[in-house]
């Protein structure tokens, strides 16, 4: 707990006693809140067994399982588009040619600041009348790729900027051209730096797939919504689905942290986008 080292000295006997009293009081308050919450649930009949036992039903999971499969498919295909598109955009943003640099920057700034839902609505509601009417899967995945690749480009760029300057200077001193320098020296090293950040981006792409709800693509959230129209067990279903998302994303983030330590060591440079450390 480095923050605590910044704010506090090692507590003495008096402070330790106060901390103990504080700890006990907080525990009591938390316990009281939890009990009140459960009582409220019980009073509204939300704890009735059959409302929760639906999650032991094979057919419920078979139904939700299809949603999970669609979510995984959308997230995976989106990532397969986002990674190369992000890499190309990042290269464009630091290109030597001004026009390429300008175009890449404009793309990144525009798509980083356009809500993805707006893009989804364009694919659902506008483009079909222009003759572009793919399967609903693509009406979700293409907007995700368009939006998320702009953020991914910033991740790659942060990785490139995090490399020591000497790398680029040494490559230039060897007489490599800009393209060779990028391809042979900078990009491979930057890639290694940002691999953990790629996994963190997977978390945000996974969240983005819930827009399938708006595109009527039957991913997990939409499937859950469909399920509730049959069962009417709203709170239970959405809470369990939320737990699934949180647990998956939590596991992915922890994996990214672990990979960061493993690949880049404890003193790894930080990959920041918008001032925020990505991993």
């Amino acid at each position, binding site marked *: 707990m480095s*923050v605590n080292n910044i704010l506090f000295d090692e507590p003495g006997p008096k402070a330790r006693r106060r901390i103990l009293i504080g700890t006990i009081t907080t525990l009591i308050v938390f316990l009281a809140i939890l009990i009140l919450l459960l009582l409220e649930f019980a009073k509204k009949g939300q704890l009735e067994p059959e409302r929760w036992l639906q999650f032991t039903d094979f057919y419920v999971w078979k139904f939700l399982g299809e949603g999970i499969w669609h979510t995984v498919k959308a997230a995976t295909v989106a990532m397969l588009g986002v990674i190369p598109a992000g890499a190309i955009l990042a290269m464009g943003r630091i290109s030597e040619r001004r026009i390429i640099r300008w175009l890449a920057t404009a793309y990144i700034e525009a798509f980083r*600041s*356009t809500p993805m839902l707006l893009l989804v609505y*364009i694919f659902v509601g506008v483009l079909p009348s222009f003759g572009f009417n793919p399967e609903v899967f693509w009406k979700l995945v293409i907007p995700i790729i368009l939006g998320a690749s702009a953020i991914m480009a910033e991740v790659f760029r942060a990785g490139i900027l995090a490399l020591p300057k000497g790398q680029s200077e040494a490559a230039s001193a060897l007489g490599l051209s800009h393209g060779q320098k990028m391809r042979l020296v900078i990009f491979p090293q930057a890639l290694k730096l940002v691999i953990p950040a790629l996994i963190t981006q997977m978390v945000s792409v996974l969240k983005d797939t819930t827009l399938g709800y*708006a595109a009527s693509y039957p991913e997990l959230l939409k499937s859950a919504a469909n399920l509730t129209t049959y069962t009417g067990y*709203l709170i239970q279903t959405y809470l369990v689905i*939320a737990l699934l998302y949180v647990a998956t994303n939590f596991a992915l983030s922890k994996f990214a942290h672990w990979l960061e330590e493993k690949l880049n060591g404890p003193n790894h440079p930080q990959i920041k986008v918008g001032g*925020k450390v990505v991993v």
Partner: protein
Amino acid sequence: MNNLAVFGFAIATTLALTGIGFLGSMVIGGLIAVFRVSPIKPLQIFGGIYVEIFRNMPMLCLLMIMVFGLPDMGITLPLFWCAAITMMLLGGSFAAEALRSGINSVSVGNAEAARAIGLSFSQSLRYVILPQAATAMVQPLVTVLIGQLMGSSLAATISVHELTYETQLYNLNNAGGLTIFAIASVFYITVSLSFGWLGARLENKIRMAR
């Protein structure tokens, strides 16, 4: 003229959601950050769990709980507030992290020196730690603010009459096509670039030589 009024109201709603969402995020984020740095273990753990739950939760999922789940518990909120509270809860986790990492960016020696010269807890916070931490907090908090603007668009899925909702509705009712979407997207881009620009100015203003 009628359309102008509709879109004026839509833009006002989008900005209101963004503003309210961000203010709420700051309050929750501040509280959670204090929890996480407090010497009391249960508060630390609660803060940690809060952050992990809400930064890993898709916004639409929480929105569904608010809109469809809560009425089952006898709590029915207006749709605008369903969206606003969802944004606050999620934004709070990101704001808490931004505040905490800001304090983390102050070197331990600085804080120890502040205590060594006899500054009290609040004095060392006020004169030594926060002025330095603030610079590091600005950019991530601007990112939270822009995140709120982006997130406000999801209120369209629950028929809050904000910009994204009115845009797609207009497209359904008229042959608006790409134009209306382009205008909406230019609005979002302009506002979020302005946020970024204001943030950079603020950061420069409060930056101190280290």
